[in-house]
């Protein structure tokens, strides 16, 4: 039924991952960079589900569950950090946070 779709799904997952990676390079706003990271996580989820379908095991599904949980925790903490640093610097430009740059 849906087995033949797993291969195109893998290619889509790669495409989304690449778009996410390029986004992390190119964007300057911290929140947008964070959203590109979430995009990469979603691409990985798709890869897991596609592999799970291809191998016929449920390990992929369980791992997707854990990836989602960790992504939720990371999003909460990451956004709290963004709020905190916005309070200090009043900007969300990635280039402005360069105190540790040598």
């Amino acid at each position, binding site marked *: 039924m849906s087995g033949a779709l797993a291969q195109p*799904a893998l290619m889509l997952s790669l495409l989304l991952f690449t778009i996410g990676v390029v986004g992390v390079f190119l964007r300057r706003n911290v929140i947008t960079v964070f959203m590109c990271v*979430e995009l990469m996580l*979603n691409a990985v989820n798709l890869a897991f589900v596609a592999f799970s379908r291809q191998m016929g095991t449920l390990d992929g599904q369980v791992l997707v569950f854990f990836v989602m949980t960790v992504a939720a925790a990371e999003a*909460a903490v990451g956004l709290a950090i*963004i709020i905190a640093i916005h309070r200090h610097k009043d900007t969300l430009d990635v280039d402005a946070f360069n105190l540790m740059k040598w």
Partner: protein
Amino acid sequence: MIDTVVFYLFAALAAGSALVVVGQRNPLYSALALIVTMGSLSAIFGLLGSPFIAALQVVVYAGAIMVLFLFVIMLLNVKREDGESSQSPGLRTTAILLGAVLLVQAGTVLWAWQVAAPAGFDASAVKVAQALFSSRYLYVFEATSVLILAALVGAVALAKRER
């Protein structure tokens, strides 16, 4: 047949909105495009025979995480990103080129991975829950609950105003 058509429809939607996420200047529109991406991914999960994960994708990602993103964007009143980037245009082109290289290289490897998918695939909610609580993943499951608790406490502590 209709499965394939619907799949390519949602795949196009997902890829298109991913490009909007990366390309759009206004972070609010990027967030909305990301929600569309997650929704189409949920549809694709359903097409791949995983209804439980499809529903979870909407509940957790599109319904909770993205709401959090929207809240932060609205509270911080994030404006359009414009002005000169400190990166030179050469660096940006290199980034896009490297992305294309990644796409081509990993694409050839993945394309060579042709495995016939078995027919009887049951990933319903009951089965996935059984796998989650199986001896292999039970410890990790309990550990993620501690992780979420830590994230909860951490997020509140970080976002609180210093009085």
